[in-house]
């Protein structure tokens, strides 16, 4: 029997991996993947807790909603990365430090 704890453990693992990727990777695309992993961990939690909701399947529906929004944000993020590449000829976030000002 798969308990809520199992879901939470997987979700936590996913969150940690995503977080680690976001912080440590040298490639903007990989960071973006890390962010997606974090989002997926959150969505997994949403689905897992949805079981305890008064309304049936509201969690799943909210998760779908979130996945759509995540796709949208990813598209925007990819566009930003593309623009960054155009401007700096690199997508290594360490080299892009103009935010310092």
């Amino acid at each position, binding site marked *: 029997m798969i308990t809520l704890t199992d879901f939470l453990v997987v979700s936590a693992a996913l969150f940690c991996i995503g977080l680690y990727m976001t*912080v440590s990777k040298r490639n903007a695309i990989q960071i973006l993947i890390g962010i997606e992993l974090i989002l997926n961990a959150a969505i997994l939690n949403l689905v897992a807790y949805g079981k305890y909701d008064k309304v049936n399947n509201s969690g799943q529906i909210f998760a779908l909603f979130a996945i759509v929004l995540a796709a949208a944000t990813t598209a925007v993020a990819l566009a930003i990365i593309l623009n960054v590449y155009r401007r700096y000829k690199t997508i290594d*976030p360490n080299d892009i430090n*103009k935010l310092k000002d």
Partner: protein
Amino acid sequence: MEDFLHSIQSLNYTVAAVALPLFAALINLCLPVKSKAAGWISTIAILLSCVLSARVFATVWNNPQVHAQRIWFTIGETQVYAGILLNNLSVLMLLLVSVIALPVHIYSTAYMKHDDRYSRYFTYLSFFCFSMLALVVVDSLILFYAFWELVGFSSYLLIGFWFTKDKAIQANKKAFIMNRIGDIGLLSAIIILFAQFHTFDIDTIFAGKGLIAQSVIKNGLWIGPVGQIPALWQYVACAGIFLAVAAKSAQFPLHTWLPDAMEGPTSVSALIHAATMVAAGVFLLGRVYPMFTETELTILACIGCFTAFMAATIALTQNDLKRILAYSTISQLGFMILAMGVRAYASSLFHLATHAFFKCLLFLVAGIVIHQMQHIKDDNQLDIDPQDITHMGGLRKKLPITFIAAVIGAVALVGLPFTSGYLSKDGILIQAFDWGERQNGWLKIVPVTALLTSLLTAFYVSRLIFKVFFGELRLLKTNPDIKLHLSDGGWQYKLPLVLLAVCCLFPVFSFNPFYFEHAWLYIGLAHPHFPKLESSYHTIIPRVVTILNLLVLLEAYRMYVQAKRFKFSQNNFFYRLSYNQWYIDNLYKRAIVNPVLRLGSVCFWIDRTVVDGFLQLLARISGAIAKLAAWTDEYIVDGFLHLLAAIVQSIGNFARKFQSGKVQYYLFSMLVIVLLLFILKILI
């Protein structure tokens, strides 16, 4: 009324006579140092003083005394008067000093001709004359003390006149210090007299029926008309006076400065250290004479006698021309003190007057001789001491007038008949024997010693004369090829000699050459209450002394001129004692000077190491404290600030790191902070 006018006139003349040399000194002080006018200004001033003194003398001598004073200042209830007291004693001294000073001034104009500080010399000389003339006429003990100091001071200036000579500096220091000892005595005597009589007036205290005459010493108290103090103070006052006399008149034990004082110019020695200033001590005795008791006078007589004898024995063997004369002066001053001691008051002052003339004359002669020897030395580039009589001899043909003057002076000093010295010295001897008759025990030695001293005088004077003026010039034996250009010198040399030589003869003092009682000077000074002499000594002593003197002269002539007799051994104890001046200087050097110098160096050491050391220690301590403070300031105060700055800086640096511009870093930071917040939340 006429008397009154006379006295006013006398006072005016006296003031003028005293002030003229002072004006001369002041004018000379303004002249350039080499100005030849100085000599004439001083000489004219002293000539006028001399004339005025003679007028005063003629008016006052053997007339009632003239005494004028006015209030000088008032302290509390005490009024201090200052004024002039003219009696026989003071007018005699006034005349004597100015008359002696005149030839010395004339002589000095020639003698000091080539000196670089000609006008300074006359400034000092005039200043001395002023002080000395004032000293003899003032009526207040305070003024007396002031002028007493001033004559000492001018003497100091003149002894050290050639201040480039080290010996002269030593001599004037010695004279000054010795005189300070006497000054302390005089000052304490004055203080005691004031405490007893509440006045400084010499006339009130010492006059015939003055306060002293009304005082008695009874039951250990000195009872005066205005108060009484323990008798001890009377003795202290007399001792103080004696100390002053001993220092000024060069009596044992304070006599050693006078021979050294001969480092000054010879004309100065003649005026100050033979004729006038050194007689000031005797004059002081004359002024305060009534205060001495019988015992004190006896002590005075003994000391005078001892000094006379000692100085005469020293004079026997000295080779320095001026030193012989200096010791002779000490010896003659001893005679005067002796005379004071044996109550021969008038004889003492009579001898003072006659001695002033013949000793001044002898010094001027010595000056000429030394001057000529110096010429020989300079002309021939010899290395000799121009004052050493062993180089001289045979000068009588070269310096005829000087020779005659010297012989007259010497004969007067020896006291042969027809001279002034005969009158005064026999007076002293006769009265000394008369006094000795009335004493008992060992005091009878005193007159005999005086007689012996008189014979010693004859011997050393004849030795001096024979060695200098007779025989052949000994310098020629050792240096046969030297050239001699000797002469008596100009009228400035001859005139003073003639003047003084005339004054050494008997007619100046008495028309009867054999009886000192007939001398006008003696009659004028003799106190009516002193006993008349009617003893057999009066006839015996002069003859015996004259015969013995002649014998001694003959012996000396045979010894030094004919060189027939044996010479004294120069190795025995007595010769060495005499030659080394009784070792008194050595004794003082060992007993006083060296310990004082040692004390001085100890004090210096203490000053250097202890006092200075303490200060240096303080300095070092404050230096260390300052360094500590600097260290604290630098490392603690500044350090604290630096620490603050460093902390702020490091915090800043730390915070800055987060602003690296790297997105991941921002994210990581946020993560850490959120985690920290959660951890904190759990912990708290």
